[in-house]
């Protein structure tokens, strides 16, 4: 069994191109911002809870975020560089402004084991809740209040999400 790592594939390839192991102690979430920085959450069942940030092309973290990282799973970055972190068993989503290592805002409303976060180009946030009570919650940009609309039909223990069109071109 391979050691924990981030595996990179070139488009169209079926074999790994690059492995990142330094700092990836138990990677469960990954995101990339418009500048090419890679964010990796080291998650729920690992020895350390943190988010490590790699500069473009680097295999060693340039920054480590621990503040607000309590049960990390999914992460994403919006068009403004805001980082969103789903903390599964502590039931919140932390938001970090670009380049910051402490959260400026915390979402708790409408969450029940959040595991995945996705944003669209307008800043709308979608959070999947692993428990059945509220499968996919939606938030308007900058808000911590859950919209009354949700996505639930056909979902049981939803996990990952992706939005089309994607943020990156």
């Amino acid at each position: 069994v391979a050691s924990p790592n981030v595996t990179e594939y070139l488009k169209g390839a079926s074999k790994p191109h690059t492995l990142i192991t330094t700092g990836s102690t138990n990677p469960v979430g990954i995101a990339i911002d418009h500048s090419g920085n890679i964010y990796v959450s080291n998650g729920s069942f690992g020895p350390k809870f943190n988010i490590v940030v790699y500069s473009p092309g680097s295999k060693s973290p340039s920054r480590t975020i621990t503040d607000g990282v309590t049960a990390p799973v999914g992460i994403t970055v919006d068009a403004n560089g805001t980082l969103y972190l789903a903390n599964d068993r502590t039931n919140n989503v932390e938001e970090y402004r670009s380049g910051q290592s402490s959260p400026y805002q915390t979402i708790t409303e409408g969450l029940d084991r959040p595991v995945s976060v996705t944003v669209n180009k307008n800043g709308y946030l979608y959070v999947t809740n692993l428990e059945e009570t509220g499968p996919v919650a939606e938030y308007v940009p900058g808000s911590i209040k859950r919209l009354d609309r949700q996505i639930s039909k056909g979902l049981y223990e939803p996990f990952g999400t992706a939005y089309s069109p994607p943020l990156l071109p």
Partner: protein
Amino acid sequence: MAAAMLAACGGSQPPGALPQSWVITAQDTRYVHSVPLLYVSSEGTTHDVKVYAAGAKDPTPIRIISDGLLFPAGLCLDAQGTLYAADRDGWVAEYHARSSKPFRVITKGTDNLDFVPSTARETFG
């Protein structure tokens, strides 16, 4: 555990070197950008990826993808609408836009995808 990142390095390639499959047609672009969609993987009683019209109030899924999936977890999309689905059982399945059958399955380097809610993609080289 491993997190998968799928890099599309087309931005650093001369246009003449691009494989045909990388070329975005006008039709593909219209499709991808005309209807906002939300893709959600489920690993409970249903083991699939459901596609919803984003922004609607509790919409019914407009498409269900199950072929090639056992315990789908992390998802990502590229600009052509290609869906990449990481399966906890140890592979990444790729689907063309509008297709529900995988055209490629990556099994190398994917032996520890047991708790990965996201994959990521970059478009620079």
